[in-house]
């Protein structure tokens, strides 16, 4: 699997030179492989072999069998008390950081890091704050790395579990634990904000927000007093207040870069998720409609600006899709459900022209085979 490697064609001379150079490398590499696989077959588990797996993994960190062998050696040597578990695993964590700098998308390396941490966690020796700092650094280098975000959620889960382990006595979530969990999750929420402020297109951060927000709201609900986290407490008063806060953020993003997919997806979550919609319906009979109408006005305003900028005066693709969605939601809210109205038909028609890549999808929607929830998004 090659990703992002430029195609080069070597001259005959350069090719011959490479073959010469590679000869020795291949011989060394194959000898090392053979030696280790022979030892593996004989179940050799000693310190020299552990070191040899390091040598091979530095040459080829994708060699999963050698990672497996390394883990078996470590477990055996720790059991035999020939090495110290904590020291050895912490050395491995250092080795992994060095490898990840070169191969940040290699599954097997991340996998080994998680294994090391799981081992350390069994004796409560994992340092999750260090892990969080490391993964933050990696996300500075590539803010969309799928493995990094996954690893980050793994670290956070473990921090949360640590918190719960500390209390363990009572089965109910105590005030102290709820506070600790809240602090962890609010820090994460703020982390996503900082990532979004750096780059509005970071959908990985927006995605995490959709998971964090309902959780933080629930945790605030667990607290007897509401003196904590004065800076965000008012935001999390109820889903309606969160919604208002997030809509402001989306509005800024949408006027900054209207072509960005992330903000439109996130807006769809805000306007349709039951977490918000149910609460708005509780506030007042018209509250949800009011929010929808207000958003409609904003998106229509943006669309006007986009039309003025467009050489042919076309509607903006995302604006139009969003308008279509909001109007559908409004119609559903006012119980005028039924066939597509003429306005929606017209919008779908123009989408077939301004967004030709998805023409057949809009045509299907005109035929009425799609449901409301799929309209526009």
């Amino acid at each position, binding site marked *: 699997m*090659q990703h992002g490697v430029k*195609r080069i064609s070597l001259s005959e001379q350069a090719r011959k030179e490479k073959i010469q150079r590679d000869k020795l490398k291949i011989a060394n590499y194959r000898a090392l492989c053979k030696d280790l696989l022979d030892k593996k077959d004989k179940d050799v588990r000693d310190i020299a072999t552990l070191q040899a797996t390091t040598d091979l993994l530095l040459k080829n960190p994708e060699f999963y069998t050698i990672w497996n062998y390394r883990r078996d050696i470590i477990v055996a040597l720790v059991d035999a008390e020939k090495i110290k578990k904590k020291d050895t695993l912490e050395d491995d964590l250092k080795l992994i950081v060095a490898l990840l700098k070169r191969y940040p998308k290699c599954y097997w390396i991340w996998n080994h890091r998680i294994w090391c941490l799981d081992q350390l966690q069994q004796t409560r020796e994992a340092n999750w704050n260090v892990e969080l700092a490391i993964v933050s650094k990696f996300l500075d280098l590539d803010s969309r790395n*799928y493995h990094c975000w996954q690893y980050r959620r793994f670290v956070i889960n473990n921090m949360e579990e640590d918190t719960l382990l500390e209390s363990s006595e009572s089965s109910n979530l105590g005030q102290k634990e709820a506070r600790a969990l809240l602090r962890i999750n609010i820090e994460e929420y703020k982390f996503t904000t900082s990532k979004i402020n750096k780059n509005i297109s970071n959908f990985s951060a927006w995605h995490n927000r959709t998971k964090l927000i309902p959780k933080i709201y629930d945790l605030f609900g667990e607290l007897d007093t509401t003196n904590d986290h004065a800076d965000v407490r008012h935001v999390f008063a109820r889903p309606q207040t969160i919604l208002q806060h997030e809509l402001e953020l989306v509005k800024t993003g949408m006027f900054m870069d209207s072509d960005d*997919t992330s903000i439109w997806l996130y807006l769809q979550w805000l306007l349709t998720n039951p977490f918000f919609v149910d609460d708005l319906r509780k506030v007042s009979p018209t509250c949800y409609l009011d929010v929808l109408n207000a958003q409609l006005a904003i998106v229509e305003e943006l669309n006007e600006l986009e039309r003025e900028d467009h050489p042919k005066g076309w509607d903006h693709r995302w604006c139009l899709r969003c308008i279509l969605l909001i109007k559908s939601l409004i119609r559903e809210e006012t119980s005028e459900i039924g066939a597509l109205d003429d306005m929606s038909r017209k919008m779908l028609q123009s989408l077939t022209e301004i967004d030709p890549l998805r023409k057949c999808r809009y045509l299907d929607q005109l035929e009425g085979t799609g449901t409301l929830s799929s309209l526009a998004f």
Partner: protein
Amino acid sequence: MTQLFKQKHVEYVQNLNSQISQDSYEYWLLEHLRLNGIYWGVVALATMDNLKALPENEVFDFVLSCWDSRSGGFGAFPRHDGHILSTLSAIQVLLIYNRLDDPKVVDKKPAIVKFIKELQLENGSFQGDRFGEVDTRFIYTAISALSILGELTEEMSRPAVDFILLCQNFDGGFGMVPGAESHAAQVFTCLATLAITGQLDRIKPEKTAAWLSDRQVEGGGLNGRPEKLPDLCYSWWVMSSLSILGKAHWVDFTGLISFILKCQDPNGGISDRADNETDVYHTCFALAGLSLIEMSQKLKEFGLVPIDPVYCMPTSVTRKFTNYTQQ
């Protein structure tokens, strides 16, 4: 580029193991992917209706030499550890060559099935091997392999499907584990699992299909997540997913075909993006993706063999054992 260099791609696959390849250090660094590579090469050839371009008996012997008697699964290379990914590759290659009933394979079947079944965890997911890595990729791999072997039971598929549904996000896509961001390759593994187990009616197809069709970007290529660059392998992950949902036509074929053809090396092989280094993985998924486009268009522009979007093998092969109804 408007043409598909079929003959060149056949030669490319044939030469993957040649002396010229073996002269390069990089060839040896890829041993841990060799069996998966054989599968990609075989599917590429099968899609071009040229399976005989590889010596069947040599391939068969190599596959069997990758069997790891300790675990009961197949490793990616002789003496490598068994893993669920290479185990599926082995089963697929044996099936394509119609050799699953060979006595040498039948011998090993109980151990292979045991290996896969024991990877299932309490929450319904599957780990890739005994070291605990969990990913919806492994659920698909296990379910797919068991269904090919006729060993998939309701008892195993029910919790696996429940776990898969936990991985779905608000946007209609699926991630690698619950809580993870939607990713087109993970969407494929989840939808294909639902298709094999007959549980597609548990999701809203339009929502997922809409997210998938939004993966197409200017220039016609497909990306794997919002605001990422296009990559040719998503021609498979996205197109197979859309095909499973019966919505393959929700992307623009002209643009996508042009993107795929531009990734060809005129000397054979296909890369992730135009002018990048080719590999057998992208060569396979480009051809399989093109086949899905042909099937959806009911055209025969490239004369490719129809590919099953759930199993990534020719439909002539999967028809032998599938009991799910193709959408």
